Structures are given as C-alpha cells and as structure tokens.
C-alpha cells in the first residue's frame, strides 16, 4: 500500500469534471485506488463514488494505492492532483 495526503486547492473540489478526469487517470493502473476524506472512502475508479464524497476546496484527503503498480500510480496521481485540484 502506498498513500499520500493532499489538500484540495480548487475551491469547487472534486465535482463531475475532475472526478471524470481522476477516474480516467486511476483506471490506467492495475492497483486499486481509494480516496479517503474523514471517515468516508470512495473507489477512485468509480465516478459517482467520487462525486458522492463531496470533496471541497480546503478539504484534506488521502489517496491510497494498493497493487503491483502502486508506486507508479501514487506518483502519477499525486501529479494529477497538483495539476488539477
């Protein structure tokens, strides 16, 4: 398991557009990708799971990658978050 923390900078948070982009980014890896906000966790490869987390600007999230390519996934997703959210 590889994980990283991130604080959302985009004030609109993870709404439909970035959720769709994130699903696509996560789907490129074999590892499972989970997004955790507080007590709630969503599958980073499922659009409505992500949108249902209602992540807003300023929220702290943890991204957990688990699987054979978890390190590559975490690096790529950390880059995705810093560029898009």
């Amino acid at each position, binding site marked *: 398991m590889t994980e990283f923390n991130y604080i959302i900078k985009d004030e*609109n948070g993870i*709404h*439909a*557009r970035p*959720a*769709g*982009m994130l699903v*696509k980014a996560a789907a490129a890896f074999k590892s499972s990708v989970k997004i955790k906000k507080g007590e709630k966790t969503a599958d980073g490869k499922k*659009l*409505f799971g992500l*949108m*249902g987390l*209602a992540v*807003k600007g300023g929220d702290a999230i943890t991204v957990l990658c688990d699987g054979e390519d978890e390190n590559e996934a975490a690096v790529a997703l950390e880059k995705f978050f810093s560029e898009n959210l």
Partner: protein
Amino acid sequence: MFGFKKKSKEETLETRTELVATQNGTIEKVENLPDPVFSGKMLGDGFAVVPSSNEVLSPVNGTIIDVQDSLHAYGIETPDGLQILVHIGINTVSLNGEGFKAKVKVGDKVKAGETLAIADLDFIKSKGCETYTVVLITNIDEINSFNINYDGNVTAGETVVLTYEK
C-alpha cells in the same frame, strides 16, 4: 390512481431501454459541447439538451445515487445497472447551488419524466454559463449499442432521445 403514486414508487421499477428528454428544446451532440471533458466523452456518452424549459426531468426510471451539493448534477442508477449523469449547464458548479432547486435526494426512486430539479436558465445565462443539460451513460461499457435521435424539437419527459441495447 394518483393517490397511490407514492406507493407505486416503492414497487420495482421497470427497465426501459431508452432515455427521454429532460427538458423541452433540441438535442445537441456531446462532441459539440464547449468543454473538453464532455466533448471528449471522459464522463461517458449520451446527448445534450439545448433547453427552453426550467424543469429538469429524469430521463430514466431509477434510483438517485448522487446529488451534488451545488445541485447542478444528479446521478441515477437504472434497474439494469446503468449509471446516468444529468449535468445541468456547463461550469455551473461555480454557481454554488444558486439558480438550482433539487427535487430529489439520494435514495429516492424516480420514474422517467419525474422532476429532478428546477434550473433558472435565465439566471444561469446571466452568470455567463451555457445552459446545456448533458445526459450521459457513465458506464457506457455496460451496453452493446445505442442510437440517438437528434432531429427536431423534443418534449420534456416524452420524447425518446436515446435507445440502447445491452
């Protein structure tokens, strides 16, 4: 009959392999939308309504699986497992709910043609946002084929815009 409407909603919803228009208006291809995430089909495939009416109706029978806090986007799961996104306007997340009234909540069962939300199209336009309602099958891999009728004017809740085969 109408007195039993609430009870009938608790019954198993019938699968209709079609999506109806969410509003009165015309139909535009998602490829032509001014947002690369929609035109690039990153969120799924479907159609956009160029709306002339404020009441946004469900395109399908199903269960509400998401209502965004900003009230501009709704997720509906059909009885056969399709997850439909109804996204009202482009960049309307930035309005923070202003101009929208939600008529459903997560867990509600809706029938095609029932109201999801009321959108104030004039207000949305006044804020510089496009008013397209984008209707997408987000898990498009679940279906074998679909067909969209782009012709003419559509009537909210009545005109079948998209038919699919699983």
